[in-house]
């Protein structure tokens, strides 16, 4: 797999991504201070982030009983399915542990 073209492209992409990120961080640290507009944007966005954060969503969810019921109902279906399928998966791995391809 290590020689396949798509894998090489993926590795190149990830390597380039990290190099660009490091360059971006160094530029951010060494550039002149933020303008007033940038500081305002930062503070506004941090306040808005509170609304879409887990705390903000939880607060909005408390006020919306229909959405709350949907979430409670769907998670009571999903969670047993996930747990049961994980247990079945582990049992199959246990039964077929001699098989190299499991």
């Amino acid at each position: 797999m290590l020689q396949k073209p798509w894998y090489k492209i993926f590795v190149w992409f990830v390597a380039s991504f990290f190099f660009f990120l490091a360059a971006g961080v160094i530029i951010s640290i060494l550039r002149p201070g933020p303008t007033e507009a940038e500081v305002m944007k930062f503070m506004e966005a941090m306040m808005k982030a509170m609304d879409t954060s887990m705390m903000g969503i939880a607060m909005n969810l408390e006020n919306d009983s229909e959405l709350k019921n949907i979430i409670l109902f769907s998670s009571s279906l999903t969670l047993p399915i996930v747990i049961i399928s994980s247990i079945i998966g582990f049992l199959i791995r246990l039964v077929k542990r001699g098989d190299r391809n499991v």
Partner: protein
Amino acid sequence: MNARFDFIMHWIWAIVWSLLAISGFSMVGAKHGWLLNFDYALVDYIHRIFATIFVILTFISIFYEVFRNIKNDSKKLAWFVIGRSGYQLFTFITTLILIMTGAIIWICNEFDIVAAGFALIIHEYISYIALSSVIWHIYKKCHALIWPKKKVEG
């Protein structure tokens, strides 16, 4: 295709960590927001979701190593993200510090701003160190970037 667990975990880890890194670094301050176009709300959301996935990946890795030790399998897994020595150990320690400080920031942000602030400083500086270590890791493994030349017949 018999893809090994440690190989797959390595690349899932790389993808999740890269998304955490870019979202995290664009939230450091007003000077850094340009990285993701100042959309801090979306960036914060992405960072929290991938942080949760990252914690789950860490638990899976730890349990895998514990089970390997129980089975007395001491073979060094070259691709695995955590381990007993070298870069694997370094990654393990930085991961734990990032998770613990991240959890403190998330939980204490609403009621204990001092603790959250302290955790934020550690979280920030450890992530600079971790990013530098990733660049070093790519340098050490740069042979993976060599594109195989097609052999010419005759």
